């Protein structure tokens, strides 16, 4: 068992999502899953919503999952893992199982923000001892880059394509992390694979807390974002540095920003490397970039204020 999160120690751990899966080169999701599973010192059972991650990691007769794993349907990863966890509690209570096991559900933003939000909300409210992880790539990528409620303002998608009248998505992204925190669950957090230590510490912390936990992790998709395959981690870092994707956690109602960029970069730095925002740089769409920046500034200020009102700031323990 690893006590500290050092690369040296982590390199000795078994990777529980094997290579050979069929995720695209440069996709953030398998990186996120590997980091999550690597962070756990407990045996894990996982459920995955229908989506890229699911269809690419378990094509009969092959599986990339070296842990017990279930795919049920699109909208119900939370209810499914809640069922697994309930059977665990039942058999444990009956003395038929005694191992300490952790339960994690993975879903994309479509399966989490949209079609799966009821199942997720229900599972969180019922207090199952589980961690739900959304890998948010901001659209229905598996079906071919359709707009979701996680799609950012202005983005070009196949169902809200940037045209002569409609300049891509005209609404701002749903703030799901806040919605989950508002459930009053013991732990909700945002993370990014660019800040792997922060991500893994949050997973460890979450797994050591009893009850329902939620983590929202940005997951670049070069197909949908129209970006270079080798820029994924760079773009997820820009998402953090522009405060498009602030890294923070809400633990027992206490909000803490876990990473503050030394210099907050302008949102154009995040938008520029992505073809889905290309049209925003036309003169007639400049107002969208302006609004995007205003939305981010407002939310970042709100988040800082929320964190400043919290009483017990402190470093995340590494053990």
């Amino acid at each position, binding site marked *: 068992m690893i006590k500290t999160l050092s690369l040296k120690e982590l390199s000795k751990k078994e990777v529980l999502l094997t290579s050979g899966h069929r995720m695209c080169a440069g996709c953030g999701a398998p990186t996120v899953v590997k980091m999550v599973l690597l962070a756990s010192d407990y045996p894990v059972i996982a459920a995955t919503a229908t989506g890229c991650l699911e269809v690419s990691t378990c094509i009969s007769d092959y*599986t990339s999952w070296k*842990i017990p794993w*279930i795919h049920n349907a699109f909208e119900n990863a939370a209810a499914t893992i809640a*069922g697994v966890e309930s059977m665990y509690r*039942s058999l444990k*209570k009956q003395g038929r199982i005694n191992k300490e096991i952790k339960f994690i559900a993975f879903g994309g933003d479509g399966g989490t923000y949209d079609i799966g939000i009821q199942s997720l909300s229900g599972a969180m409210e019922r207090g199952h001892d589980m961690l739900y992880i959304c890998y948010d790539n901001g659209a229905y990528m598996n079906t071919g880059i359709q707009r979701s409620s996680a799609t950012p303002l202005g983005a070009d998608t196949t169902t809200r394509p940037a045209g002569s009248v409609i300049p891509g998505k005209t609404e701002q992204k749903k703030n799901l992390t806040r919605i989950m925190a508002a459930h009053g669950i013991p732990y909700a957090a945002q993370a990014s694979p660019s800040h792997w230590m922060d991500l893994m510490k949050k997973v460890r912390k979450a797994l050591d807390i009893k009850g329902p936990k939620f983590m929202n992790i940005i997951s670049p998709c070069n197909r949908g974002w129209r970006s270079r395959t080798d820029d994924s981690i760079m773009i997820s870092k820009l998402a953090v540095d522009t405060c498009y994707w602030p890294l923070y956690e809400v633990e027992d109602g206490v909000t803490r920003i876990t990473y503050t960029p030394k210099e907050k970069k302008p949102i154009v730095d995040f938008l520029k490397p992505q073809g889905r925002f290309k049209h925003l740089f036309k003169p007639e769409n400049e107002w969208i970039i302006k609004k995007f920046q205003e939305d981010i500034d407002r939310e970042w200020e709100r988040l800082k204020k929320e964190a400043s009102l919290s009483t017990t700031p402190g470093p995340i323990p590494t053990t």
Partner: protein
Amino acid sequence: MAKIAAVTGNEAVANALMQVNPDVSAAYPITPATDIMQRFTSFVSNAMVKTEMILVESEHSAMSACIGASAAGGRVMTATSSQGLALMWEMLFIASGLRLPIVMPVVNRALSAPLNIHGDHSDAMGARDSGWIQLWSENAQEAYDNTIQAFRIGEHMEIRLPVIVCLDGFIISHSIERIEYLEDEDVSNFVGEFRQVSPLLDIGHPVSYGPLILPDYYMEFRKAQDEVMSKVSKVVLDTAKEFEKISGRRYGLFETYRLDDAEIGLVILNSAAGTSKDVIDEFRNRGIKAGLLKPRLYRPFPYKEIGEALKHLKAVCVLDRADAFGGSYGPLFIDISTSLYPYSKKPILINKIYGLGGRDYLPEHAEFVLNELVEIAATEKVKIIKEYIGVRE
């Protein structure tokens, strides 16, 4: 010693579930099945069962959680009706495709629109091709007995399929009847210990549930499911034999009533069979050779056995408490026609749709139908194949 009680159908089913004592249940309220889970959760609150109860936010999540719990490796049940079953529809196919022996009493109720909370069979008929086994029950006693047998059938090592147990909404679910309960210990021994197959909770032997299967193997997978279905009848009969030993009550794939020497007959599901039997007795008293067949195992449908049982009749009316819109005839009629098709000499068939949305099925309806069959048997002439009865013109 069996205990005799006066209880509602829902109470009888809840009692069966308590005696089976499953590991996990996930459920959501819906009329008229709510009462089953209300009673069951009071057993949970009072530690009369070991069940871990998941009070979900929808029927879709109820079935989703049941699937997760069953794959984890334990005995699982839920109950529902009508819209609840309709909302579960997507998950029904996943439960059967993953071969998870979940048991689900379905208290039959009409489907919207228009909204109606009363009894008819539209809900279960909508799920008839979902790969679930379906057992149908005439009264509270049969609902109780079928619920207990359902666990043993579904969990049979050669089957491993989910099972629906049907009982009529309100007519059976909310009416008080005399029932014989088995001893807790007898039920417990009858269903036995749950046998796990590749449980998710076996951390040492990780398995993946729910893979993507492309055109290269999808069809073989479906064929395997069809082959399992063909083994269900035998397991249902074997289970019935074992059940008779502890209960003294005999069950088959279907029930026949005065059918062996009958010339005209009714085919009818669930509670309306009881009313029909009384009327058949009256016709018999008048020297008319009438009989009845009441399917019990509705899915997989025992086509061959039912064809054999009906082929000698002159005229048969299939009564459907549901319509299959666009199929022209009621769902049960379509199955009965299929089972008789292979025979060159077979009865003339007619179809009546009755009792939708809780409309009463009265003795005069059975009488009306039997009189029509008498005429058809004599003249070999059919005025109309399908007709709604007990309905305003």
